[in-house]
Every structure is written in structure tokens, then in C-alpha cells.
């Protein structure tokens, strides 16, 4: 400590003389206050600027005394068994990435991550976690990405993600989950904005279809290579996702299997669905009215037991579960019923039911509902924007342009102007700055008429007592026209003739 202090003193004193009482006071204060101690790099680790890498060193215990300036800490490919509460002894304020993959971690103590509160990326892949206990990730309130690939996770306890509010991407593939972790989306206090969930290669069989329909509006959820139980509801979901070009389905279509059978080959036993091509329907209703929207492409009467889902702008509903508090419900025959439409009900509604086939590109199971005078902000069918709007905008622009041009031309050509030989007051009779040069009859006689008889130039109004040194000839002369023109680059040129080849306009 003394060495550090004297290093710091080195800046105030040359040669180390310190007989100044203020300096001793500072020394004392420094000793008592925060002295940044620079921890050396632990053995088996490499410390490079803001990275510490202890990867591949066969460590069975976490290195003691890791420097706390690191933004990235890599402890992968070791033999760690657990993450204890005291795995670091001081807070790591700068740590944003922690890699603990390819170890043998089977236990994470609660509050193990309290001292790394700013972590953004945590990789615990390829370990031996079997269960995610409650509050296991306490302290990781800023975590955005969590990798738990290739563990043996069979259960996620409630409250496991209670602190991880900022989580956006969660990888849980290659684990042993049997139930869909709905708590990730529905628990209060959990992730508020989970947009990416990878549950591929688990043991999921039964899925909560309605919740998935609702959640998949905002999140991509990967479910390939699970032994899914393919009832008509699941088939409805997969058909719908495929129609919506849902990324997880587009990328992994071939890997969705129903207990070993490819999805395509599973027939939904509730037949009787019509093959009528699906066309989007439009409905207009006044607030307070009741509305019934039949499911497009669904032939009535409906098979017993068939569940019909509707995806609404806010959530999803289905024909079996009814929410008494909601004014929206799905009748047993699949029809969506609005018991008193509200303005905010305007939007696009999609009927999701197993239709036993892939949809053609131009087909759509949509029903567009407009309540009152509100307009629908369409997210799915952007091409349907009313062409009338475009036309109006274009017409207005064109009309105003044309009118402006007409006005300018009127101003230029209809303002009376007399051709005079003298400058000065003559210019005022022709509008502010424009003078139309009239052709001089003498010029015609001399045969030096130019190709264009008239030119439009912008001239400065000449002051009577101008003392411009360059001699100016009158505007109209026999041989040439001398103008004080303003070139493209804004510079003034005086005395150029219009025949001057360098005079570019």
C-alpha cells in the first residue's frame, strides 16, 4: 500500500521529498480510503486488458483473487462442480459476459450472482444442472441472454426466473423438460420481454396451444425434435405458424415430429373441413353492436370435440374455455362472437383450426373487424393499405406543383415590362429582379442574332452611384451582351459574353 501511495505521490513531488503536512494528510486519507489494488493474474489464467481467460485448464475450483476489472470472464472447459456464493470475493462491476460452459456444474447456490449484477450474457451450457431452483438467478436483473443448452434440466421451479426481468433470449435446448415452461411468460416478476425461447430437443409432448398462439405473436419459440403429441389442436397451431412463415417452422420444418411420425402424415381425425379456399373477410360494425364472425373455411356443422382457436390483436381465445369477464367468446361451432363491440376491438382476427392442408400463399384465415370509424393498423397484410390514400396524396402533390409552375410563369411573362437602354430605374418596372431581354432590332439587322432570341438572366439592381471598377457597358449593345451573371457556384462574373464557352449554365 505504501508503494502505491508513493507512486501516487510521485506526481506531486520530485524525488520523494514529503515534508508537506498536506501531503501527509493525503497519504493518510489514501490509506483509509479506496486504494485501487491491482490483483495479479491468477495462475492458469490469462489476463488481457479486460478479458480473463482461464479456459481449458482443468480447474476443479474457481481461481481465487480474480481481478475485478474484467468485462469478460471465461472459465469454460474446466472441472468445476458448483457455483458457490463466494466464488468471487469482490463485486465485478464491469463484468458483462460470464462463460461457464463445459464444466460439471450441478449446483448453483442462491445469490451466487449477486456480485456480478451487470451481467448481460451467461453461458452455462454443457453442464449437469438437473433442476432450476427458485431464485437461482437472483441478482441478474440486467441479463439479456442465458444459455442452458445441454444440461439435464427436467424441472423449472416457480420463481427460478423471478429476478431476470431483462431476459430476452433463453436457450434450453437439449434438456429433459416435459412441460412447457409457461411461467416464463406468465409469471409476474419474470422476464418482461422474452423474445427468443429455444426448447428444441427436449421431452415435450403436450403443449398449451392457446398460450402458444398468444405468446408467439411476440416471441419466437423453437420446439423441433420434441416427441410432440399431435392432436388436432397442435396440427392447427403448426399449420397456422407455417402460414405465418414463423421462423422456427421455416428453419426446421422437417424436424417437427409427432411421436416419431412426420407431421404431414398425421391426419386430424376431425374431418369434415371444407376445401373452400380461404379469403379474408371484412366486417364493419358500430360500437355496442353484437357481431358474429364465422371461422373462414370451416364447414358447419362442426365435429364434436373440435377446438377452434381465434388469435385476436391482444391474445388468443378458443371454443372450449370461456372467460366470463370478457365480451369476446368462441361459440362451439367456431364462430367468434363480440357481445358489444368496442372501439379497441378493431383489428385482425385469425381463425386457427386444423384444416388438414397447407394454405396457399394468397389464402388467409383472417377476419378484419372495424368498429366505428377506427382504422386498423395492419401488421400482417401491409399490401392491403387503401390505394385511395395513395391516390389522394399523389394528386395533391401533383396539383400543387402544377399550380406553382403556372403562377411562376404568369408572374414572369405577364408582368409588363419595357425594354430600355438605360439601367437603373428601369429595372424596377419589371418586378423585383427579373428582366426579360428584348431583342434589339439593330441586332437583327446586323445578322448576329443568336439562336435563342431571348434569355432570362438574374441581375442585381444597379445602384446609381456604383463605383464598380470594372467598366460596364450598357445592357444592350450591338456586338455582345454583357451581363453580370451569377454562375452556378455562386461567384460573380463580370464582363463575360454569352458566347464565352467557359460560361456554363
Amino acid at each position, binding site marked *: 500500500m505504501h508503494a502505491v501511495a508513493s507512486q501516487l505521490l510521485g*506526481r506531486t513531488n520530485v524525488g520523494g521529498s514529503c515534508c508537506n503536512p498536506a501531503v501527509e494528510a493525503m497519504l493518510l486519507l489514501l490509506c483509509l*480510503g*479506496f486504494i485501487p489494488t491491482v490483483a495479479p493474474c491468477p495462475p492458469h489464467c490469462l489476463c488481457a*486488458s479486460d*478479458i480473463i*481467460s482461464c479456459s481449458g485448464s482443468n480447474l476443479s475450483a474457481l481461481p481465487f483473487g480474480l481481478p475485478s476489472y474484467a468485462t469478460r470472464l471465461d472459465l469454460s472447459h474446466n472441472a468445476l462442480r458448483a457455483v458457490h456464493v463466494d466464488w468471487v470475493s469482490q463485486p465485478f*462491476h464491469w463484468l458483462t459476459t460470464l462463460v461457464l460452459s463445459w464444466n460439471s456444474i450441478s449446483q448453483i447456490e442462491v445469490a451466487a450472482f449477486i456480485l456480478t449484477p451487470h451481467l448481460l450474457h451467461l453461458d452455462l451450457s454443457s453442464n449437469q444442472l438437473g433442476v432450476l431452483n427458485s431464485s437461482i438467478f437472483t441478482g441478474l436483473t440486467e441479463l439479456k441472454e442465458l444459455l442452458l*443448452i445441454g444440461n439435464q434440466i427436467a424441472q423449472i421451479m416457480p420463481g427460478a426466473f423471478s429476478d431476470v426481468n431483462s431476459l430476452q433470449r433463453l436457450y434450453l435446448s437439449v434438456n429433459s423438460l416435459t412441460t412447457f415452461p409457461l411461467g416464463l411468460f406468465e409469471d409476474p416478476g419474470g422476464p418482461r420481454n422474452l423474445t427468443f425461447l*429455444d426448447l428444441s430437443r427436449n421431452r415435450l409432448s403436450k403443449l398449451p396451444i392457446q398460450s402458444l398462439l398468444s405468446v408467439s405473436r411476440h416471441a419466437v419459440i*423453437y420446439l423441433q425434435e420434441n416427441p410432440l403429441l399431435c392432436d388436432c389442436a397442435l396440427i392447427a397451431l403448426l399449420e397456422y405458424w407455417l402460414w405465418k412463415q414463423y421462423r422456427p417452422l421455416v428453419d426446421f420444418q422437417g424436424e417437427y415430429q409427432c411421436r416419431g411420425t412426420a407431421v404431414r402424415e398425421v391426419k386430424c381425425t376431425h374431418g369434415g373441413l371444407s376445401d373452400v379456399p380461404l379469403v379474408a373477410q371484412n366486417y364493419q360494425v358500430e360500437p355496442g353492436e353484437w357481431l358474429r364472425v364465422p371461422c373462414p373455411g370451416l364447414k358447419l356443422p362442426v365435429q364434436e370435440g373440435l377446438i377452434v382457436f381465434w388469435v385476436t390483436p391482444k391474445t388468443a381465445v378458443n371454443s372450449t374455455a370461456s372467460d366470463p369477464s370478457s365480451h369476446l367468446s368462441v361459440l362451439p361451432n367456431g364462430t367468434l362472437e363480440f357481445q358489444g363491440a368496442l372501439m379497441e376491438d378493431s383489428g385482425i382476427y385469425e381463425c386457427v383450426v386444423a384444416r388438414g392442408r397447407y394454405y396457399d400463399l394468397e389464402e388467409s384465415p383472417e377476419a378484419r373487424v372495424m368498429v366505428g370509424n377506427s382504422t386498423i393498423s395492419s401488421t400482417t397484410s401491409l399490401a392491403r393499405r387503401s390505394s385511395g390514400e395513395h391516390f389522394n396524396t399523389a394528386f395533391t402533390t401533383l396539383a400543387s406543383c402544377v399550380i406553382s409552375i403556372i403562377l411562376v410563369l404568369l408572374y414572369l411573362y405577364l408582368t409588363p415590362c419595357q425594354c430600355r437602354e438605360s439601367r437603373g430605374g428601369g429595372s424596377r418596372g419589371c418586378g423585383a429582379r427579373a428582366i426579360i431581354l428584348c431583342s434589339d432590332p439593330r441586332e437583327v439587322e446586323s445578322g448576329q442574332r443568336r439562336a435563342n432570341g431571348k434569355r432570362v438572366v438574374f441581375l442585381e439592381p444597379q445602384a446609381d452611384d456604383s463605383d464598380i471598377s470594372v467598366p460596364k457597358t450598357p445592357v444592350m449593345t450591338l456586338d455582345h451582351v454583357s451581363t453580370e451573371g451569377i454562375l452556378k457556384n455562386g461567384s460573380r462574373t463580370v464582363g463575360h459574353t454569352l458566347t464565352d464557352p467557359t460560361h456554363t449554365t
Partner: protein
Amino acid sequence: MLCVCASDIISCSKVGLTNVTLDLPQHTVVLDLSFNSITELYAAWTPKHLNRLQTMLLNNNGLTFLSSEAFVHVKKLRYLDLSYNGLILLDEFIFEPLEHLEVLWLFKNRISQIDRYAFSTMGALQKLYMSHNQISRFPLEVLKERSKEDTFKLLDVSSNKIKVLPVQELQTMRAWIKNGVYFHNNPLTCSCELYNLVASWHLRELNSAFDFAGNHTCGVSGKQHEKILNLNCSEVKILIKEAYLEQTLVLDCDTKHKYMEKTWVLPGNIPVSSANDSAIVDHGGKDDPRDSFHSSTASLPLEHVERGAEAGGFAFGDAAMQKIKDQLEQNGGLNPIGEKDEEWLRVSRKR
């Protein structure tokens, strides 16, 4: 295959790969090939373009040869890990396709030669880690090229074989660039110029000097391990300006973090505003002080400043981690720093 496949992450770590030819799906975003025995990488490692690949880990492979076409099919790469390998030289072609690369890890190789154009096409490069190699020449051109972009953050050439630092050039750079230039653990030649640089960076609490204070060593005629900060050179003061009455003094606020909102304070903690005529603040031509990561200068006409008084420049940032205060001292007279200790100590010494 023995690889572990998640949805967009493919991990083939420690699976014994040697010659690599992988037919990877187009949606792959992260590819982990670390801890294998891939000693040479040719263009054929992937037959197709992988336009969504952002991260590629090739560390710990004993890699000694990278063909000039090795990364031609992965142009959208943002993070590339080549650390812990056996690379010896970096030619101008290897990284040419990687125009989106942001972070490049090259530490713990055997690099002794770097072509001057090795990184010239990497317009998005933010962090370049090259510590623990055999580099003998400080790659100033990388710093000069990349520091023109506002995104550059870090150049690590620590633990190499560099003997000479371009001290003058380094001192002209902005504080937020110096903050990320790590050069400790090199066999530098002792000089008072070097002391000035290290001492001033240390005083400014720049990460590159502060975090590794004990590791800045130099040598005189072969004998190493003299701590630079212990050299017997003249005192370094930072940002002390002397001026006389009736002059206009221009003070610069050069912060080690970008995007700081900067305000100026006159003696007596009077904030500077256009209302009181005392000073004119120039935020580098930008209206929002938050935009002025380059500089914020205050011009003080000195009629009203008392002798020995102190003005300050404070920079605040939105960084969740901390607030940073940069203090300037401006002396009307010739007071030695010693008497100002109390004032100076008020400023927090926490980082």
C-alpha cells in the same frame, strides 16, 4: 455428428475435428469449433455462404495457417475468436472480407509480423486483442485508422515484444481512445517521455494505465523491470493552465468515456450559461452536449477570475455503473499542487 445443435447455435467444441468441411444450415448464427485440432483453415471448410453467422470460435486449435479465403463465406461475422493458437503472421488478405467484424481475439498466438493492411478493411472493428504474442512493432496504423471511427474501443498489445512506443502520436489522441490502448508488459525503453505518458494516463485514471499500474515496466540498456512510474523524471501535472488577466483561456474537457453530458462550472460553483457572460462553451459544434464526445471547450475571458481560483469541468454520463467527474484546475497564479490537496481530494477517487 457429435456436435450439439440448438436452434441457431451449433457447438462442435472438443469433438476431435481436424480437417473441417461442414455443411451447416443457413440459419446458424453461432459456431463453436474450439478445442479441436484444426491446424489449417481453407475456404472449403464451408461450401456455402453462411450469411447469418455472427460468431465463430476457433480458439484452442493449434491453428497455424489461415488461407486468404478462409473467411470468404462468412462475411457477416461480428465476433471471431482465434486466441490460443499458433498463428505467426497476419497478411493483408485473411481478414479482408470481414467488414462487419466488431471484436477480434488474437491473444496467445505466436504473431510476430502484422501486415500494415491486415486490418484496413475492417471498418466496424471495435476491439482488437493481440496480447501475449511476439509483436515487436506497435501497430499505430491500426489505431489511427480505427480511431477515426467513433466506434473503436480497445487495442490490446500488452505482453508482447514492443520496444518503442509512438509516444507523441499516442498523446495526441482523445482520452476515450487512450483509455483502451493497453501496452503493459512490453520491453519498452525507459525515457522521461514514456514516464510522462504513463504518469499522465495514470493521473487521468485511464483503464489502460490504472488497471495495470504495476505492470508498466521499462528497461535501460537491456536491464528490465524498472517500473515506469518510479523513474526519476520531472513532475507531471495534468491540465494545469496558467494565464494572465485580460486573456482568454480555452479549457478542454477530454473525458475517458464517450457520450458524456458536459457542463462547466466557474469558481464558486457558478454554472456557466449563456446568460452570464463569463464564458462561452463550445460543444464541438453540436447542439446537444451529449453529442460532443469529441470535446467541450470553454473560453473564459479572464477579467473576472480571481487569482488562484478554481474552475471546474464536470462530465456526467448515463452509464449505469458510475458517474465520472473530470476536474480541471486553472490557476491564476503559480500555486504548487501541494496546497490544493484538500480541493483535489474532494473529487472521488473511485473509478
